[in-house]
């Protein structure tokens, strides 16, 4: 996504620079014409408006850059706590990437994690059984090796 945004913005900037240069050349040419005009019947600078193609190019370039910048903005986060926490629960770190594909710095992690690591709810008997089985199986393995 980010390279689309960058190329679009760059393309728009090139267009805008070209339009700016064209407009500058146009106004320089106009002032040169008015100063070197032979007939003094129209003194002063007659305001000649910008040619239509330069105006259109400027507007199109602005629209393209806006589009590119809008594509490059990082995704927003839900402000309601339940929506936000649900998003973290469902997507994890995936939902909090910035444009470069890194997890953003103020990502706090799953807010429900403290519910899952409450020491009072640890199944200590099952852990003891698992440990005993592990000891037994490793002891059998060692005997088999010997």
């Amino acid at each position: 996504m980010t390279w689309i945004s960058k190329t679009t913005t760059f393309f728009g900037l090139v267009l805008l620079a070209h339009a700016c240069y064209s407009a500058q050349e146009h106004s320089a040419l106009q002032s040169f014409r008015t100063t070197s005009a032979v007939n003094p019947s129209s003194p002063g600078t007659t305001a000649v408006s910008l040619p239509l193609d330069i105006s259109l190019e400027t507007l199109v370039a602005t629209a393209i850059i806006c589009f590119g910048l809008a594509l490059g903005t990082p995704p927003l986060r839900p402000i309601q706590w339940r929506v936000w926490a649900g998003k973290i629960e469902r997507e994890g770190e995936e939902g909090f990437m910035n444009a470069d594909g890194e997890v953003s710095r103020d990502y706090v992690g799953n807010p429900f994690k403290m519910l899952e690591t409450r020491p009072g709810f640890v199944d200590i008997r099952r852990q003891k059984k698992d440990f005993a089985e592990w000891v037994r199986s490793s002891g059998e393995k060692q005997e088999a090796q010997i």
Partner: protein
Amino acid sequence: MSTEKDYQISPVVQESIVHNSRTLFNFQSLTASLFGVCAGILGLESYTGFLFYIISTLLTCILFYALRIAPSSIASGKAPFDTSRYFRGAFEFWTSGLSGGLAGFILTWTLFYGLVRA
């Protein structure tokens, strides 16, 4: 009192609010400077320039809404043009760019007007 009760029932995440408004503010200051460049090249003067600024800022808001808010907001069952999933006040969202980017707009507007029509 009822608002306080509402916040107790459905709390909001401060970090998300800060993140969202900062994202919007960055985007709008960048585009405001860009509109200044555009207005300077087009050679707009006085009221026309400010009118251009107001219209383009509103269009930018709509673009931002369409690209960043609308897909997930409408999917979650909100009405179109309802920004309450990501911003606290709708008025704040639609008009914050007008005051925030005005200085940058005038700066680049005058600069490019002077550069082009030197």
